[in-house]
């Protein structure tokens, strides 16, 4: 009875609504608002990203300009003797180099000598607190004189030292060579990707193609849970357990090195790569699977030669996200890589990454200092690198690779 009634009502309404006016354009407030709000939020988020970049880059700008003469005339001639840590023979530039920065007036003279200084290497340190604790107690000619102020332009010196391999930011004559940091970052990224990408992709392939439904329901959420795992915990694990364990296998000298760091970051990257790859593989039409099986292919042949190639774009996106994670990873890098900025392709050498450098030094730097500016420059470099990486990969994957795998 009620059913009939409702049907009748429906009919009545239908007949009423025949008189719809279509000649007049109607203003729909909710549509309008929703559209504008979505648009606004979208642009806001894009603007925030751009503004962050602009801010980071702006903070690094001063080192591209000549330093303003803040200190007027310097009367007292400051003489500083210093060396940093151990003076090794590998320090570049030939001995007895005389350098002058900017216009040298009056008695200001900059004499510089660093590097291999014969046999009579003297190590004298002066860090804030003056501890005249000379190592070895030998007198040295590793001496240079800097008069701060009119003569020495920190910014130009910093800019000039960017392309070198020495990262010695805290010293009277600081050097900001980021090449070693860059190399360390790339090395770690490479190691972690070589470790995590095959593992994650094969795990995803197994979950997507071979695992039964019940297994899939257990595996996928578990690994996804790991994606939110705090990196400090992974770092701690790498520091305490992984480093010792790997050392007992490979017997390398330095306990914390790029290999340990790379593996630890790989652990952090695996869940990300896994999740996105798994989604990409599951999105491959089931008809591909059926068609391949109907041709007499076994399951693994189908998985490797049909499903994996069909999911290439998704897998590349996954790897890129993984690289992004490793590239910007700070905590694990701080804890497990040894933090020594050295140029060395040996995977078992300690490294320092760009992100770890910012993380370690930003809190202790003088605001507005050259060092501060350089750290921000590193920040913008990280930005630019990630962006470039994505852009190149996008063009390469969309352009060449995909065509080769999936036809023109």
């Amino acid at each position, binding site marked *: 009875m009620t059913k009939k009634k409702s049907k009748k009502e429906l009919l009545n309404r239908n007949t009423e609504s025949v008189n719809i006016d279509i000649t007049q354009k109607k203003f729909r407030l909710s549509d309008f608002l929703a559209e504008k709000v979505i648009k606004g939020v979208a642009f806001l988020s894009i603007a925030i990203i751009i503004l962050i970049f602009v801010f980071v880059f702006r903070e690094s700008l001063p080192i591209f300009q000549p330093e303003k003469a803040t200190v007027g005339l310097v009367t007292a001639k400051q003489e500083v003797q210093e060396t940093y840590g151990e003076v090794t023979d590998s320090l570049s530039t030939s001995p007895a180099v005389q350098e002058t920065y900017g216009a040298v007036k009056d008695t200001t003279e900059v004499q510089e000598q660093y590097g291999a200084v014969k046999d009579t290497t003297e190590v004298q340190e002066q860090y804030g607190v003056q501890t005249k604790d000379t190592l070895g107690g030998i007198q040295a000619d590793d001496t240079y004189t800097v008069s701060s102020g009119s003569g020495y332009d920190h910014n130009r010196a910093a800019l000039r030292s960017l392309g070198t391999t020495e990262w010695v930011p805290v010293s009277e004559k600081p050097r900001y060579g980021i090449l070693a940091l860059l190399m360390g970052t790339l090395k770690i990224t490479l190691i972690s990707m070589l470790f995590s990408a095959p593992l994650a992709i094969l795990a995803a392939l197994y979950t997507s193609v071979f695992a039964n*439904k019940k297994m899939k329901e257990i595996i996928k959420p578990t690994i996804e849970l790991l994606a939110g795992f705090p990196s400090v915990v992974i770092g701690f694990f790498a520091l305490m357990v992984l480093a010792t364990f790997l050392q007992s296998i490979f017997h390398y000298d330095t306990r914390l090195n790029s290999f340990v760091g790379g593996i630890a970051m790989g652990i952090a990257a695996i869940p990300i790569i896994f999740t996105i790859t798994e989604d990409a593989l599951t999105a491959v*039409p089931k*008809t*591909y*699977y*059926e*068609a*391949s*099986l*109907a*041709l*007499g*292919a*076994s399951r693994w*042949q189908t998985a490797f*030669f*049909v499903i994996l*190639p*069909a999911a290439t774009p998704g897998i590349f996106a996954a790897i890129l996200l993984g690289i992004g994670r490793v590239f910007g990873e700070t905590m694990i890098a701080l804890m497990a890589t040894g933090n020594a900025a050295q140029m060395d392709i040996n995977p078992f050498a300690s490294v320092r990454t760009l992100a770890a450098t910012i993380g370690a030094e930003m809190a202790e730097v003088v605001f507005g200092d050259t060092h501060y500016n350089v750290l921000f420059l590193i920040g913008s470099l990280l930005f630019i690198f990630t962006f470039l990486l994505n852009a190149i990969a996008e063009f390469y994957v969309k352009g060449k690779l995909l065509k080769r*795998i*999936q*036809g*023109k």
Partner: protein
Amino acid sequence: MTIEKINTENLILYYGQKLALNNISIKIPEKKVTAFIGPSGCGKSTFLRSLNRMNDLIDSVRIEGKVMIDDINIYDKNIDVVNLRKKVGMVFQKSNPFAKSIYENIAYGPRINGISNSNQLDEIVETALKNAAIWEEVKDRLGDSALGLSGGQQQRLCIARTLAVNPEIVLMDEPASALDPLSTSKIEELIVQLKEHFTIVIVTHNMQQASRISDHTAFFYLGELIEFDKTRKIFTNPEKKQTEDYITGRFG
């Protein structure tokens, strides 16, 4: 008399609790075209898929009875399903070329069978494409993506892909149902040519198509095989009333 290629004995198939095929016994002759007709959901596609064990992919399927191909029960425990499917190829309703180039689509089957000689592969690809009457259209763009072909071309490519493995039986699940009349007629011509070398079993909704291309026709209704005979007999003088009703369009 024709030789039997496929012989099913009391085939029963369940989807979970639901009975989908009830006691199907049929003898499909070699190197002929056999058409399955019947209304939607009558089990003809299910039956077709059980001939190369594609139903194995569905978890809830349970099968009883025998399917004999060349006097071997393919539901026997020791049967190698992968090799069975090399023998019994299948073309699907929706064309499903891989996201690879045209060449790679065809070469995939031979490759997984261990053929890696490029000259030999070239030859197989060419022969398969010629057999599927698509060679002239694609010979200049074998490196292009197969997904860029039209629907009819894609379906013929899928047929070529199946032929490249050189099966004995080709199962076709409504191969022309999503195609325009011109492509359909091309595929129909193709099927008639192919029966020289292959045993073809085709599921179709289109009764004109069944009468045009098939030698034998089986009529399915509600999971049961109602009638199976020579096509001419089914379409001119069916024995069962249900068949006649369906063919004349009185139900279905």
